[in-house]
């Protein structure tokens, strides 16, 4: 059978899992929680939830030398923390980033080069969030 549908970038949600034992929210989802609970084996299922929305900028960089597959001249990347403690890295859409600034994380598809296909966060200044 020939698979003719490329579904790599159609799911644009980013999901975390909640450990049913310790309650920690895990992203990316591991096979084993730091409390020792094994994912979906011999125990209650791990609840999954989408992670997006308000977050705080922990650090950032303006990258001038982009890897293969990206055509932009530069890209600003930021590391953020959501209020539930989950941390993530995303594309930062801000002209004057400052450590500790409040941002809104949206999920958008990325299709760059041969292997970068999937959802990624785009981190916007709160006043610039699309409606």
């Amino acid at each position, binding site marked *: 059978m020939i698979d003719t549908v490329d579904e790599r970038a159609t799911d644009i949600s980013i999901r975390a899992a909640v450990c049913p034992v310790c309650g920690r929210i895990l*992203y*990316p989802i591991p096979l084993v929680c730091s409390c020792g609970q094994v994912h979906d084996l011999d125990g209650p299922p791990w609840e999954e939830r989408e992670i997006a929305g308000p977050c705080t900028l*922990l*650090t*950032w*960089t*303006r*990258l*001038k*030398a*982009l*890897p*293969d*597959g*990206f055509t932009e001249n530069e*890209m600003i*990347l*930021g*590391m953020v923390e959501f209020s539930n403690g989950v*941390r*993530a*890295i*995303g*594309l930062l859409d801000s002209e004057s980033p400052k*450590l500790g600034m409040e941002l809104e994380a949206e999920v958008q598809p*990325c299709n*760059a*080069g041969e*292997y*970068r*296909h*999937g*959802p*990624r*966060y785009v981190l916007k200044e709160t006043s610039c969030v699309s409606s």
Partner: protein
Amino acid sequence: MRQVAIVGIGHTRFGKHADRRLVDLMGEAALAAMSDCELSPGPAAVDQVLAANMGGGIVNHETGIASALASTLNLTPVPAELVENGPASGASAVKLGHAMIAGGMAETVLVVGGEIMKAVSGSRATDFVATLLHPDAEYTVGVTLPAFAGMFTRLYMDRYGLTERQLAAVAVKDHDNALLNPYAHLHKQVTLKDICGSPEAEQKNPLVADPLRLYGVCPVSDGAAAVLLCAADSLRFKALNTHPTVVISGIASATDTHCVQDRLDPLILNAVRNSAERAYRMAELTPEDISFAELHDAFVILELAIAEEIGLFARGTAGEAAIAGETAIDGSIPINPSGGLKAKGHPLGATGVSQIYELVKQLRGEAEPGRQVNNPLHGIAVNFGGFGNNVVTTICSREEP
């Protein structure tokens, strides 16, 4: 546990070898290591070959590197395996070779690390290295190792008040040392005035991963290095030990979370600290005993952060020490007398082996004039895989006759 000595060392020039075959380049370093201890290649020359390489399959379209190396060196039927542990592949291979001898599986192990990265464009080389990041949470986003280094540097500057001038001082010192190292990739002296503090300097030293600048980042390099390990209590050691004796007194590795953002404090390099603590314990040494260090400064910020993590400086103070000259060849604790990854170069699979080559060269007292550390007894090397995901610390010591 049997004591393991390093009896032979070999090195190619780091730089551009895109016209060479990877296995041939690694073979050149291997032959130099065997020649260094007056060992002729042949089927019974060594008990084991370990090759260290990260990108042969992806970048050079070459796999089966360990067996090809054994064959071209006329060492067959010697057992030969490839060790891949990202940019820490080299020291990982030395660690495994050490374990094989210490555990009684072999008396002699030839460890050869090599990489040819300049066969592809800089953006492809950057992309290939980034494949060690988390495929969904990091790689897809466009994160690269320089990006992590930029984010780490900004956080470090914010917390400890590190200045661009202090960062630039690391690069200046590394370039000075590399100038005297015939195997270094970059033979170019720079001054603080050249790369810091003026619009002209900013033009010469542009931002790469803000706040990291060009002179804060290592070059993309090709190259190979080799060491020959030997059981120090064996008959073969007596024949092969043709230089002042250098032993591996401590070697250990540790891992940290795959995703950097998962770390409670992204500025704490847990794998560096854990591997160093284990290596110190094995060697029965403390940071105060160390005479000099070879640290994985793929980005100059890492020379400072690793030096602090392994106990050479208090946290947040290595920048001041660098600008005060404490890490220069004649300083209180010389760091990267080889020029470091910053100026000697960073051919991934070769780097960890090259660091240990340098430890041996310094401990023997055989470094080139001007970059020989004064009478060293113990040297430490930290080989940093990923962005601190998997780190190997090695301590080598000179044995008094």
